């Protein structure tokens, strides 16, 4: 797997490069600014890009803009966007094309390198990974008024993990229940939310998000 990294802080850039190398992932380019990133993405065509939201020269949401621009030029180019904070607004902008291959995580998640690399691989294969904090916000927002209130606590847990891009197997492991139970829960969730059940992880996540954001 080939990766392009965009991060303006030298220490973090080097740290990320080393972390990925340690997991046997090839780093095609590590850049420090928005224009360099766009050039690298178009030249290298990596399997996935790890992008910090705030990049020079504007030091605003340059990374996010470049990621969206690159996906416009290279459809379905997988991007994993990292940030010191997460916003539903940005998550929506990343997800709006419905193509998948999108990740949006807090930088803190890098601490758990195994999970981080898992997320990276999910995104590279066209999956969708959202930070638990974004997912929690999404669920909190609608909980008061909508059919989501009809979900049992367990079903809510399953839904949260689903929105984070986890497969049934991963959810089963995390909640210490059988995979069969997970699929039972998810069928029930889809029924309650009136969604089309599907085995495809990405489509599943997008369906949930589309419903929540509706």
């Amino acid at each position, binding site marked *: 797997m080939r990766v392009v990294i965009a991060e303006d802080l030298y220490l973090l850039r080097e740290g990320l490069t080393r972390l990925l190398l340690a997991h046997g992932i090839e780093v095609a380019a590590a850049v420090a600014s928005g224009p360099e990133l766009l050039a690298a993405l178009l030249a290298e065509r990596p399997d996935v890009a790890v992008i910090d939201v705030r990049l020079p020269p504007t030091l605003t949401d340059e990374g996010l*803009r470049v990621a969206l621009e690159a996906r416009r030029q290279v459809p379905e180019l997988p991007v994993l966007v990292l940030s*010191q904070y997460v*916003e539903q*607004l940005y998550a*929506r902008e990343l997800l709006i094309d419905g193509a998948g291959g999108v990740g949006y995580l807090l930088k*803190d998640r890098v601490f758990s390198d195994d999970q981080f690399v898992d997320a990276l691989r999910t995104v590279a294969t066209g999956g969708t990974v959202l930070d638990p904090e974004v997912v929690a*916000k999404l669920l909190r*927002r609608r909980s*008061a008024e909508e059919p989501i209130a009809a979900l049992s606590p367990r079903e809510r847990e399953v839904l949260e993990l689903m929105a984070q891009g986890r497969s049934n197997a991963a959810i089963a492991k995390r909640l210490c229940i059988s995979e069969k139970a997970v699929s039972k829960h998810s069928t029930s969730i889809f029924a309650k939310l009136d969604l089309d059940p599907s085995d495809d992880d990405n489509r599943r996540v997008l369906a949930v998000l589309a419903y929540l954001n509706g």
Partner: protein
Amino acid sequence: MHWTIMGAAVLGGWAACMIWFCLVLVRRIRAAEVRAMPMLRWVGHAIADVFGLPAATAVADLPGRHAYLLPLALCLIALAVWTFAPRGLTRMAVPVALIGLGIAGLLRARSYARGEPWPWPSSYGFATGTGGSLGTYLELVLIQSYGFVIAGLWLACRRLDHNSWPGRVVLREPARRSGNRADRPRWGLLLIPLFGMVVELLGRTSWLDFYWWDATLTMAVGAAAVIAIIRWPAVAADAAVATLLLFGLYGLALAAGWPRHVPLPSPYNDVVRYGVVWVNSRSSSVLAGVEGAALVSFGLWLLPRALDDRTRTLMRSAADAELAGRVVRLTRTRADALDTAAAELRRVERDLHDGVQARLVALGMSLRAAERLIPVSPAAAACLVAEARETSLTVLGELRSLVRGICPPVLAERGLADALRALALDAPLRVNMDIDLPGRPDLPVETACYFAVAEALANVVKHSGAQQAHVSVKHSDGALRIAVTDDGQGGADPKRGSGLAGLERRLGTFDGVLAVSSPPGGPTIIAIEVPCALSSPKISIS
């Protein structure tokens, strides 16, 4: 044949003048030369600049038989001056020309009264000199002459108004009545015609009769008057008013027949020359009384407007009170702004001290303990390191919320519109957004407005029991206008909580205001208005 060609040439000349005038006018309006005053007024000035002098000449009938040729020539000259000369020169050209026309009329009256020959046609305006009595002709000429002088002076006064002068800083002040300091030099100009009238009255012969002593004395007093007008405008204004009153009273006395017992030296056959009216009979003394009454009325009208500075301070109290109120408000909002900033800093300091710093100490201690444990018990050490990692996550979370409280990242990155959209997405109830902002306000204004809306929405969530809220943001008439409406139970009292008062103070720093309407039963509307300009629009992805 000759007259046909002549008429065609004159008409063609006028048409050319008009076209020239319109072309330059349009070009100047396009070049935004009109910013110092309203455009209609400016166009009026331009018309007066170009056509005032020819029109006045035509009215005075100075050219006589060659009617329209002299006005046409003057119009060409005025157009040239108006088009090419510095603006200051143009401004004074018409008033000076009007005064000149008036003086020409006075000279004509003088030479007529003396029976001296006169080079120009005998008509002056509507005084034709052919019919009626000679006395009537003289009166008509005098009335028109003074009319021209007064019109010229009035125009000069108007144009001495500092806003009309090019190159000056234009102060946009609220509309003011006359009578304050800025207007005083104008009244001083009245000294000049008054001085002329007094000289006439006293019969001390002036500029035409070269009796050396008289001429020198007249010129010295005249020069003193001019210097006074320029150097001490306030004194000149007071002197002008005093002279006006005394001169007017003298006219009333004339009507009462008093000066018959005080013979005045006069070279003109017992004629008392009182301004427009030359008194030599009972009926003309009545006219002098009328003129005197008019002058006294004018003087009385002027009196409160040209009094000393102490009186003027009273007259100006409205404007001063407005300024004083502004100073009080600025002082208060500045103090509020400093207090708010200081309180904010204290909060940040406390959060850093109690949260981040303490946790970093704990982190260091855990790492040190792990360091010691590594040789002894690697498993326990790993446990401690994992704990340290958890602590670092907590620290990051705390820093995140701290940063959000200072300046939300979306606000810094995207501006108010997207920051409010993000706020609406995070709110636990449905918030409809209606944002129409073509650009971005300054960051401090954006921040204040953002926190105002955030606080308002938090109140909606906490107190109103509303199902949904509506936020509308727009910029019109130089102000950012925000309204937060909810469908809750209403009854919010802005005096009770400290939140709204704090917001009001924070917005007050930018001259912003916050209004709350919350009848029991709802709906609650919070309206915010902050005067501000928008910067150029930024491209936004949404």
